């Protein structure tokens, strides 16, 4: 594919992300990560040779493998964040459920009292 197709693709990704952020579908902190990664994608599509420079700088012999490494690291990191968030949310849901059950019971008692 010609380079310009990738540039258009990355711009579409950025627009899609911004649209999602505007609709409040993404959390603030997560949006920082996703948006910055999409800008990295844009940068890479405009300057595809920059991976070569980067690889020279780090000392990787075969530059495309650096792409994969970066991607995988990013995905693992996001995964870890998600796990933390989910753990927290489990806790919150459990305490909500407990509270709701206690409230239901209190409401039943009041209903019986009224009757």
């Amino acid at each position, binding site marked *: 594919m010609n380079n310009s197709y990738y540039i258009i693709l990355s711009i579409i990704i950025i627009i899609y992300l911004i649209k999602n952020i505007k609709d*409040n579908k993404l959390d*603030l*902190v997560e949006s920082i990560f996703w948006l910055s990664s999409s800008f990295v994608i844009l940068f890479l599509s405009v300057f595809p040779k920059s991976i070569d*420079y980067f690889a020279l700088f780090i000392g990787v012999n075969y530059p495309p493998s650096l792409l994969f490494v970066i991607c995988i690291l990013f995905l693992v990191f996001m995964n870890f964040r998600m796990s933390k968030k989910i753990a927290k949310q489990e806790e919150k849901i459990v305490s*909500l459920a407990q509270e709701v059950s206690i409230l239901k019971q209190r409401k039943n008692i009041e209903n019986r009292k009224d009757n």
Partner: protein
Amino acid sequence: MKNKKNLKNIIIAIIFIMILGCIFYSTLPIIAPDTSQYQFLSNIINGNLPFSQWHSIRGFGMPVLLSVISAIFGDTVIGLTTGLFISYLFLILLNFLTLRESMKFVESVIWKKIIYFIFSIIFILNPLIIGYSHTVLTEAFAPTFISLLILLAWRFIHSEGKKSIFIYIGIILTSVFVWFIKQPYYPVCLIIIFVSTFYVILETKKSGIKYFKISLPVMSIVLLLLINSIWHSTLSENVSILGKSNSSFLSSGIVEGLTNFRHIPEEIDINYIESNKYISEKEKNILKNILLKNDQKYKDFILLNKMNLKEEITGVEVIYLEEDFINISESLAFLGNKLLSNPVLVLDSYISNYLGLINIYQTNHTNWKHYYPVKNIEEVYTENKSLGLATFDERPIYWWAWSDDIEANRPYNSIQFEKINSPNRIFINLIDSVKPFFLLSFKITLLFVPFVSIYYFIKSIILFKNDIISASKMRVIELINIIFISSFGHLMFHSMLGAVIDRYAYVVYPSVLTGYLLLLTLHIKENKSADEKVKQQYSKVLVTIPAYNESLNIEKVIKELRRDFKEADILVINDNSTDNTSEILTDLKVKFITTPFNLRYAHAVQAGIIYAKDNDYDCVIQFDGDGQHIAKEAKKIWMKMKEKKCDVVIGSRFIEKTEYPHPFFRRVGTTIFSYMVDDLTGIKIYDPTSGLQCLNKEIIKHYSKLGVYPTFPDANLITDLLLSSYKIEEIPVEMRINEQGVSMHGGIIKPIKYMIEVTYSVILISVKHIGWEWKWHE
């Protein structure tokens, strides 16, 4: 207070001038050859060199200016450059004054708007009209006088009677003066004269036949001159009175731009084509025909070697030139064709043009015909390196980096400059000692401009869309926007011409001018008058106190509120405290809600707002539970809201000097946020992080919706409200220091995270307000 303000303004002005000086002097290594041009020019003036070797594009303004400067500042190069810098400052001042004057002509009738629009088109295209020359200050002077011309044209439009005659004469005289400074600007002046004369015909046809009779011949002369000055290729090689511009001025620049990152081999003859392994057989025949001048269709070609990162040749690209480009339309057609056939090439060459200046692409060009600074200036002194600075080598021969076409017209290479010894010696030492600083400042400026201009571009869209800014503030904001937008735009245009470096010294001028016309076409909107709001009551008020482990302070806070602010209902949001806060609250018999798990500050406050919405409260006052806020001040805020009938009232600590001992870093943060809010919306909020706020019923409704409330409700909320056209009032309040307990913003990491999050949130919120309306799905 006023003295302090004046002092601040003076300091800012001094810093601004110093920065300008850095920008200007950072281009010294490239401007300096122009000062040795001065020797060349003075040789002509003294009669040592024949006049026919003077290229008419330079005009006569520069020698005059230089002789004046050398009379005042002395004949040394340092004196010359200082004098040039001061004249550069004068130009900026003149531009600013012109802008300020023309700001008064914002409101206008429709056909005047058309004239403004025409001017804007002219001046956006102006850099293309400039052509490919490199004397720095003539390029600054001529456009400055053109901006003066525009001012005169506007004055002319808005004046009547005898005064208008004088102004019209002034217009013509100024444009003649511009011709003497820099001839390629002349078409622009002619267009201005043409349009003003057209105005004269339209306006005075009804009233004064006298004017009409004069204006018609003037119009025809002007038209004739205009056509003549644009018709480049028919004029002779020698200097002629009507001025000669470069043939292929645009194509040389564009081709230069296209060839920046590619390598042009030095000698292209038939042997080179034969031995090149990347050219196909069919193409070899075509190229040989062109070289032997047998080809009917193509006059010349440019052979580019594509290089990889290690600067090995990996391929060949050939650009066929049908003939010399003689006008703008053909050059634009060439560029358009290139864009359609190989857009990546154009984009790549444009970007590498721009980035080559700041050495992001580090190339090792062996072709000295390219006009870009090298990695190290030491490379200049060796052969076969790309240069711009070879003037200062030991040899007496004056090298200059040029493109092929102008090269043919220049006798410069053969001029011997043996007499220039002592000034250049001093200058070389000066340059050697400070060149790292100059190059660094140059690069930083180049890197900095695009991002700032993009930021201001986004901001101007926001401001343009929202009518909340008062007219005068809007103008100031627009002025700054204009400078940055157009400086970047100007840089873009000139990088297409392939000669960005020496233009950068006067980047302010075209910035001001181009953006100034953008300003007019954008039509600043005035402040929207306050609509009739629904009749609101302000009587039922709720004080929400989010509390997390505030057992030490909460009792005092509640008692104080009950004593001083009797009209308010109190609601404490117990954020799942782990200590005995809930017992204290039940003892005090105050209304409170307990959340099932810890919600943190922002969502606890939102819980209070939802409660207020459910129970139909008119106002909500946010109050801190750690004893920092004083109840009397809360009452003051509520009274202010009743009086002013606004949407939000913020209790600010920093409008007047209070006793509040704010820690230094918190103070820095608050200042930064207040500046950001001011920058984005034009309204100055002195304490965006204050937690003592009073909210209206509309805003209560707005915030009880889920997902709207961010994690830290500070400057981002305020920006959101301001951009949604809500009214915010700020009154000074007193606060106490937090005596006991742990603050929310403790430690080192938390404040940093807080700053990043709030900054990013402010930017996001402002982006949200740019707004495009299309929806993909609901």
